[in-house]
């Protein structure tokens, strides 16, 4: 039974495969988008999304209401991305360096970079942040969560989240200024 403006209820479709598939189709895009911003790789994002939905399927009985599905999926996705980033910390740094180096070579600091190059530079710069800073900034800016919600997902205090976001913004500024050739300190 679908409620207007809300996700289809999980509890009634314990044995309804088609309904669960519909739930996946409704949520896979934003889950993959969130995971791709946190991991930087499409393949990793898809793997994380698959795992998140697998866990949702396994824990469907423990999710009480419709409103808890999206926050539950978001929390699981963030945790999976964090685990994946820790496992691939070294390789992730190599990928970031490649992206940033390629974007820097292609862009001329004397002129404005193309729109696509700026997007690549921005994505690469986002991946240069630490895992905590990137997660806090993505959840705050791209998911539109409040500081308290971000703190709940990450399991830290609100003050810690504010600090992570502040450092993320300043680091991002310096990275973008360096790569895009903007004047600034």
């Amino acid at each position, binding site marked *: 039974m679908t409620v207007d403006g809300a996700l289809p209820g999980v509890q009634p479709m314990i044995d309804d495969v088609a309904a669960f598939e519909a739930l996946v189709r409704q949520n896979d895009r934003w889950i993959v988008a969130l995971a791709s911003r946190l991991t930087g790789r499409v393949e990793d994002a898809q793997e994380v999304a*698959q795992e998140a939905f697998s866990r949702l399927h396994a824990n469907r009985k423990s999710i009480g209401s419709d409103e808890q599905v999206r926050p539950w999926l978001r929390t699981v996705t963030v945790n999976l991305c964090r685990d994946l980033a820790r496992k691939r910390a070294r390789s992730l740094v190599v990928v970031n360096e490649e992206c940033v180096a390629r974007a820097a070579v292609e862009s001329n600091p004397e002129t404005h970079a193309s729109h696509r190059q700026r997007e690549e530079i921005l994505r690469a710069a986002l991946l240069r942040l630490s895992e905590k800073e990137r997660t806090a900034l993505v959840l705050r800016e791209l998911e539109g969560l409040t500081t308290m919600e971000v703190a709940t997902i990450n399991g830290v205090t609100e003050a810690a989240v504010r600090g992570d976001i502040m450092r993320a913004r300043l680091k991002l500024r310096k990275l973008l200024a360096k790569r895009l050739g903007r004047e*600034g*300190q």
Partner: protein
Amino acid sequence: MSCEKWEEPIALLVDGEPPADGLAEHLERCATCSQLLQDLRADQIALRTVPELDVAPLQWTGRRGRIRTGWWATAAIAAGLAIVFAWPGNRPDPLPPQPKWDNPPGLSPPKPAVAAKIRKKPRRIAPKKQIDSPARDDWAQILFEPPELEKRLPRGSTSEVAMQIQTSNPDVVILLLKEERFE
């Protein structure tokens, strides 16, 4: 307060936090900090407008890639493995392959009893000798293949040709040495 110390309050301001004391007045006077605030806000907008990566929709086919079985299946698998390893026909040969000894005439090969004794007992690892002496295999090669020794050594060098006598105790070996000069 220097401009560097205003960076954090400015970043918090972009995040929607209330401005720190004196920040508004400083922004009116300092062009650098004012530019920083504009750049941070521009970055915020750019971050929110970066399009999502073009990803194919997820294909959910149940618990794909994960095999989960109940306890009864796990017990059945364990029982099957136990039967496979316990089957008499699957037991490996306990005796390792026999080492090959190219014994010259006059020297007897190791007796089977001694060889078996060697295999059953754990082999003692002798401490490494500090002297620079050839390994046991090298001595055996010197003993059994003297013509090659002449080819390996340069003119004028000396060598000790060893004769190896094996005893009933595998850890005790008697070596007879003599000098020869190759010219």
